[in-house]
């Protein structure tokens, strides 16, 4: 089942075109990583899905229902974690979740049961002080709890990890990994390692256009530009090797830094032996020879560059 679908969405602020012909869809029980630089249009897209902004043209569907601007009914399917979630500082986490349950019309017993479960999932079960003294990470965790309270079909997280320190980031990613078992997740980020950790499918957005879409594995393989890293005994030999391999037809690029040579080529497994035979022929002593895994970062830089 398709949980979220965007069809030819356009949005501009004044003369600035922020979103240009954006179309993509997210299937049930998947984790969709929405990747882009700052200002690429990620937050704008999320706000349009929530009906907080009106698209200039195009259609957005959540669980098959069309999103309308302003008061949208589709929000009852959605749990939303803003990039910097803000709460009523004079409440404690339990009071806040009870309030959230009441305004979504959840029966009191269900709210209480889920509050207990969610607070222990995000590690705030013993925090009874008021929210005003919370750290960024604690607010983010409470944000996930409130977003999951009414068991939404779709959880939208806007840059859930970018404002956090490494420990806070790991905590949030762990919580999202747990949350994926019960809902579909769309999250935006510019941190690629986060995407590699939890996303199944990704969409890369740049200057308001979707540049790439598909499963993480497929995208990594599709844009296959392999890199071989060779560690040599001295910077001189590294320089020599870097220049020699440039003449080979299958090498796209080669560079060296100190005693390490990086060779970019079309297929490392097939042409790797030719590099090796070159090393033997020229009698160059090798300390380490390594084929680097294709990373999303390389793909991202290639696409967005």
């Amino acid at each position, binding site marked *: 089942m398709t949980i979220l679908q965007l069809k030819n969405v356009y949005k501009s602020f004044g003369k600035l075109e922020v979103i240009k012909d954006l179309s993509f869809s997210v299937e049930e029980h998947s984790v969709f990583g929405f990747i882009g630089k700052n200002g690429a249009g990620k937050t704008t897209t999320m706000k349009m899905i*929530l009906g907080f902004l009106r698209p200039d043209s195009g259609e957005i569907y959540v669980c098959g229902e069309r999103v309308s601007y302003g008061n949208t009914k589709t929000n009852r399917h959605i749990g939303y974690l803003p990039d910097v979630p803000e709460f*009523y500082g*004079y409440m404690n986490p339990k009071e806040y979740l009870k309030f*959230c349950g009441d305004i979504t019309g959840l029966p009191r017993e269900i709210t209480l049961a889920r509050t207990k479960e969610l607070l222990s999932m995000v590690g705030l079960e013993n925090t009874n002080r008021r929210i005003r003294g919370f750290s960024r990470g604690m607010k983010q965790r409470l944000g996930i709890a409130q977003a999951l309270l009414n068991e939404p079909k779709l959880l939208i997280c806007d840059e859930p990890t970018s404002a956090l320190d490494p420990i806070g980031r790991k905590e949030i990613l762990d919580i999202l990994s747990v949350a994926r078992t019960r809902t579909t997740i769309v999250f935006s980020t510019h941190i690629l390692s986060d995407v590699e950790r939890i996303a199944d499918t990704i969409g890369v957005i740049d200057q308001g256009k979707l540049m790439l879409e598909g499963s993480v594995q497929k995208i990594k393989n599709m844009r296959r530009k392999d890199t071989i890293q060779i560690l040599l005994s001295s910077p001189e030999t590294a320089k020599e090797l870097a220049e020699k391999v440039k003449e080979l037809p299958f090498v796209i690029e080669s560079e060296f830094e100190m005693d390490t040579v990086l060779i970019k080529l079309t297929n490392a497994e097939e042409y790797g032996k030719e590099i090796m035979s070159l090393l033997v022929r020229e009698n160059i002593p090798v300390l380490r020879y390594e084929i680097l895994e294709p990373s999303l970062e390389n793909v991202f830089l290639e696409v967005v560059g």
Partner: protein
Amino acid sequence: MKRYVAFTKKEFLEQLRTYRMLILFSVFFIFGLMSPLLAKILPEILSGMDLQGMIITIPEATAVDAYAQFFKNMTQMGIIVILLVFGGVISNELTRGTLVNVLAKGLGRHTVILAKYTAMVVMWTVALVFSGLINQGYTMYLFDTSDISNLIFSILCLWLFGVYLLSLIILSSVLAVGSFGGLILTVVVLGGLLLLDLFPKLEKVNPIYLSSRNMDFITGVLTPSDALLPVLITVILILANISASIVLFNRKRL
């Protein structure tokens, strides 16, 4: 309905825990108490002053003077306190972004406006009744209140003016931006209404009438039937302000 009640309860909790309720009730308590006291002791202080042999005769204060003090306090300091206590009810949430979570859960925007307005009106009503009762008690303690007419009606007029003022705060906060934009716009509109009140032909189509002629009802110069048009106009303006707030808030970009 359940959602509306839940949000209204949250508003009361907010007023309580941010100390705004404490302030409102303390000030209104002091108004109720000080008004008769000031009416009583001002002539005594004045007559006790030695103005270089000048003799000023000041008539003995009566209950009318106590009510005059009460309405003066309410329509001056009282309005300022109302603006300070309720001025940020919407602006604070918009500037801090606390409504984002709430609206993303599908709570209707009209529910937010109506719940906030309900909480404000209830607080104003309770505070006014509280202040009025204290004022009444102390006035009866100090003075003879037999020649007072239309007291309840006069206070009702003041109440309706307050209800209008609160609707104006809501509309201004939806229209203006920033923490104090709504407050400033409300003050500007109030200033405009005060200017209009200077034209005798327009005085009856102006809500200010309900906050400036209170003593004329008490002394019997005006009768309740004189206030028919201003009451009607004010009720229409209140409904218009709230409807406009809902329509505009529905379209507001968050």
